[in-house]
Each structure stands twice: as structure tokens, then as C-alpha cells.
């Protein structure tokens, strides 16, 4: 777009926002580019000052000054001190207007409910938290968001969610956590559609480890054995054992195996790795080793 066209566009935008008609009468030669840029910034600044969604976007990305917060909260009729639920919705394909309509009709039903489009692939939904609703209810809401997008518009989306503290400024931290949850989910929990930062456990810790430390740990724990090379049956056995708190009886039941079969397979694994999953320390070492191997593979 030429600079003159951009200037005209910005002036039209300003008229729409402010109701004021501004015209360019005389412009020094060679200053069109600078004028276009300044007008564009003026439009952006005006929008973010007076556009609620743009303000929330800035708040989530941590670019609102503390001293602007109170004024802005009042201007946009946002309660400054209340806990909120934040849902970060991400799709592989760009969200169309249908997704917006589904989510707004479903979710934005009260004045404190917010819909913010961060970019073509990320939408944030925020609402005031009902203190009587437990963590399970928030998780159900996250699943409902994911399932409704699949049902109504056949879009597969992942949802990360979190609960903020009482301050409006807590939103950016919760948003950051939700983004991280999606990243960690991509590495360690790729088949999970709904994630929350608080439940990522070891995944979070391993995500933050330096790569060299990870490699060293694998070599020290397993020598030449590569957990990425375990067959599917072994992986299922290990996962079931962990999920059932190292209980042979419970893990057997989950896998619909006879418990003697379970013991036999654990013995085979010990022969392969030198680690006996029935011993807590060994189980912990193998769990961490497998997650580290997964993280390194993702790198």
C-alpha cells in the first residue's frame, strides 16, 4: 500500500474512532512515510486506549503500565479485584468468524466475560470465577469449549486453562502459564486436548532443564539403553505402573493382565535397564529418563 493510501486509511479510521474529520492539506515533500507511520501509531494508541479487547490483549502480554491499570479498569468496566478463569484456545488452522460466534454465544453471557482474539490461532476466554465452583468444574468448562468447537464447526482445538489471583494484573501471569502449558503439552502430553499449568508436574521441571544436563542424566542412568527405543508394550506397562502408584495389582487390572504376567514383564524390564520398577528410586529414575528422552526428541 502506498504511503498516501495509508494516510487516507488512517484518517478514515480516526474518523470512525473519534468522530472527528481530519484532513491533510499541505505536506512537506518526502514526509509521506513519516506521516503515515505517525498516523498509524496514533490510530493504534487510540484503539488500545478505547478498545476493550485491545486493552486486554495488552494486559495479557504484560504491556500495560501499573499506573494505567486502575483508569483502564474503570474505563472498560472491569472489576479490579476478583479471581478469574482464563481459557486459552489454540487451533492448528486459523480461527474463522464461526469460532468467534460459537465461543461468544457460549461463553460471553455476562458483563465480566471477555473474548480476546490474540492472533489467528489463539483465542482467550476470561470470566469471573464463581467461588463455589471447584477445579473440576473449570476443567469441565475447558473440555466443553474444546468439544463445542468440534461439534459446531468441526475444528480441533487445544485448551489450556488457569485460575488467576484477585488482581487484574494477574491475568498476564496466568496467560503466560497457559501458553507454557500448551508448549509442554506438545512435548509430553501430545494426546491431551485440555491442559493446565498446575498439573504439568515433572514435565514443567524437565522443560526448564539445560539440554546437556538431560543428556548426561540419560547416560548415567541407562547407559546405552535408549528409552525412545522401547516397544509399545513396554511403554504401556511402564505408564500403567506409574499411573497406578507402582501397584502391581492395580496396574494389572488397568492393563487387563494377570498379575503374574505383570511381574514377569517387570522382571524382563529390569534385565534390560537395570532398573526395578517395584523399587521407588528406580521407578523415579526411569520415569524421569523417559521424559527427558521425549524432551530431547522434541528439541
Amino acid at each position, binding site marked *: 500500500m502506498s504511503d498516501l493510501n495509508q494516510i487516507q486509511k488512517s484518517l478514515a479510521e480516526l474518523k470512525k474512532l473519534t468522530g472527528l474529520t481530519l484532513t491533510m492539506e499541505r505536506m512537506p515533500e518526502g514526509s509521506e512515510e513519516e506521516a503515515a507511520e505517525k498516523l498509524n501509531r496514533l490510530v493504534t494508541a487510540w484503539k488500545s486506549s478505547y478498545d476493550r479487547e485491545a486493552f486486554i490483549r495488552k494486559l495479557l502480554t504484560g504491556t500495560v503500565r501499573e499506573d494505567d491499570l486502575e483508569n483502564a479498569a474503570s474505563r472498560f468496566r472491569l472489576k479490579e479485584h476478583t479471581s478469574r478463569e482464563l481459557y486459552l484456545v489454540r487451533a492448528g488452522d486459523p480461527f474463522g468468524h*464461526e469460532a468467534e*460466534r*460459537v465461543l461468544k*454465544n*457460549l461463553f460471553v*453471557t455476562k458483563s465480566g466475560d471477555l473474548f480476546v482474539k490474540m492472533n489467528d490461532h489463539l483465542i482467550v476466554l476470561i470470566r469471573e470465577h464463581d467461588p463455589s465452583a471447584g477445579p473440576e468444574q473449570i476443567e*469441565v468448562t475447558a*473440555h*466443553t469449549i*474444546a*468439544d*463445542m468447537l*468440534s*461439534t*459446531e*464447526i*468441526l*475444528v*480441533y482445538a487445544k485448551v489450556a486453562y488457569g485460575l488467576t489471583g484477585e488482581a487484574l494484573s494477574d491475568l498476564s501471569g496466568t496467560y503466560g502459564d497457559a501458553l507454557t502449558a500448551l508448549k509442554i503439552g*506438545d*512435548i*509430553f502430553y*501430545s*494426546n491431551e486436548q485440555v491442559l493446565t499449568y498446575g498439573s504439568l508436574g515433572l514435565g514443567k521441571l524437565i522443560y526448564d532443564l539445560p539440554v546437556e544436563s538431560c543428556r548426561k542424566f540419560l547416560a548415567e542412568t541407562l547407559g546405552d539403553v535408549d528409552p*525412545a527405543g522401547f516397544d*509399545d*508394550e513396554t511403554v*504401556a506397562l511402564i505408564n500403567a505402573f506409574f499411573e497406578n502408584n507402582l501397584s502391581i495389582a492395580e496396574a494389572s487390572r*488397568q*492393563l*487387563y*493382565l*494377570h498379575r*503374574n*504376567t505383570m511381574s514377569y514383564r517387570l522382571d524382563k524390564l529390569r534385565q534390560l535397564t537395570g532398573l526395578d520398577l517395584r523399587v521407588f528410586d528406580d521407578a523415579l529414575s526411569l520415569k524421569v529418563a523417559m521424559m527427558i528422552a*521425549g524432551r530431547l*526428541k*522434541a528439541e
Partner: protein
Amino acid sequence: MASLSLQHIDKTYPNGFKAVKDFNLEIADKEFIIFVGPSGCGKSTTLRMIAGLEDITGGEFKIDGKLMNDVEPKDRDIAMVFQNYALYPHMTVYDNMAFGLKLRKVPKDQIDKAVKDAAKILDLDKLLDRKPKALSGGQRQRVAMGRAIVRNPKVFLMDEPLSNLDAKLRVQMRTEISKLHQRLGATIIYVTHDQTEAMTLGTRIVVMKDGVVQQIDTPQNLYDHPCNEFVAGFIGSPQMNFMDAQVKVNGGKVILTVGEHKLEVPADKAKAIIDGGYDGKTIVLGIRPEDVHDEAEFVQKNPNSTISAPIRVYELLGAEVYLYFDFAGTQMTARVNPKTPARAGDTVTFALDMDKTHYFDKDTQKTITD
């Protein structure tokens, strides 16, 4: 018409996790197919691949002979019903059902006809002006179904739609879904972790575990002829009893040692055990709770398959009683008549119906005799 073909379907996520491995299935028009298995077995992932919500890593998926791998979900002529649904709170039943069609810019008169037809099928025609808060749980569930029906799809995909309902409503809705299938004459693929739901609803059931199909069969065949220990244990409630048994072949007869007891295997099953070379080896004996008898007459007629044990727990369900006891290091369940005199603490003599026993290879877990 909607026949589906899934050939060698694989799903591997970017981090290497293999959710579905070599899935093969041919679905005829109007079938009611159930995918069943424990949490994480790949059934929902397979459903999402059919819907186009997840990419297929390998293999071919066809609807009516047309390759669908790269076809967008909206062009596959499918409709979905999920476990976690919500009704738009400020819209009427009519608008809730119409919303999806409005998004797709379907003409108003077509929307009206579709909604009213669906409402009639679902007995919602007198409730079209109501808002969700004025509906019962069952009515809301039917509105969720209505959203799918109005699309008039070739295939309905349902992912645990009843899981969030209370037990009574779940049973009621199961019947409704069954009737719906008959009325619509549509192809339905239904995912559940509940084997009771699977057994009562499906024309055929696909049992899955760890991303792999274990067995595809009618409900009755799955129950009577499970192909491996997993299917045998998963299908049927209470679960099949399993115990280790040491095999001894003696002149064409197979005698099993289970704990301190000796049991003779019926001739028709003995042959497979002998031919499989299991003499001297340990196999797994399976027997369903209803085939563990405490009636005096049965016990008398089957002296060679009796076992005795003290009852740990007595559970009265009304039409039947479950007796829990330990035998040969295994917790066992017997499903008996409610008139049984047995109570917790009593030592009871049971007789196993050896004609109904199942045998599995201890290493491969595959059936030896079925």
C-alpha cells in the same frame, strides 16, 4: 448410503507417541459400531481421525469408496456428539439446534424444516421455545443430539455422549439412542469406555487397547469367544475370573492343577491344549462369575470341578448376589441366585462349569481354545 473403510490407519504424534496402530475396519451402511476400551486406548483418536479433526499419519480412510484422508471435516458429511456439550444459555431449543446450520449459511426454510423434523424425532417439538434452564437433563441431552440430527449427515460420530449423566439417565438415554438409530437408519460410530453400553448398543464392537484393535465382533461373540485375556477381562461385568493353572496331559486327558485343586478340562477344549504343546506349562484359566455355581444340585453333578473357600464379601443386587472369595491366590467372584444361603464368613463349595471355561497362553495372552 454411508459405508466406511479404514485400512492400516496409524496415528503418531510429533513427539513419537503412537496413539493408533494398524487399525483396520470395514463398516457397512446403517451399522451401529462401538469403539470400546480403557481410557487412552486410542478410540477417541480414531473417531477424530474419521471426523478429520486429527490428521491420519498412515493408511487410508474412505467413505463410500471415496478417499477422505485430506478432505476437510466440513466436507465429510458427518456430525458429532460429545461428552462435554453445552447449550447456548440465552437461545431457545429451536435456536440451539439451528445455530450450526445458520453458521453454514443454510437457507432459513431448510433450517426450519430440519429443526422441526429433528424435534419430532426427539420428542422436543413442544419444547422448541424453551430456554435450556427450563429443560431437564434428558431433554438437554436430546437437544445436543438434535444439533447433530439437523445436519442430516451420512455418519454420526458420538464420543462418550452419556458419560456425564447419572446412572439412571444414562440407561434411559441408551434406549433413546438405540431407538434413534432405528428411526434414522443412519451409520453410527460410538465411543465408550463402558462395556455395558457397548454390549447393549452395538451391532458390532471394536475392542481396543493401547492403540491396537484386539477384536471386532458382535457383542455375543465377544462375550462367548474372546480372542485374548484382555478382551475376556474387559467384556462382561463382573469381570471374568482368571487363575494360573499347571497343565498335565495324561492319556488324552488334560488335568489342571490350580492351587491345591485338580480340574479336568472337557475333551473339546483339551485337544487344543494338547495340540498347542502346553503339557507341563502354566496357562491361564478364565471363568465368568455366572459359571461359578453354588447350587447343591450342580455341585453334586460336578464333583471333579469343585473348589471351597470362605466368602469375604456378600453383595446383594436384588436379582442376583455376588460372592467374593479368594482361591489359589486370586480374588474370585461368583454370581449366584439371591436365594443362596451363603453369607460372608461362610465356607462355600462351588463347582466350576468346565464347559464354559476359557484358556489363554500365559505369555501371549491369546486364547488357546476359543
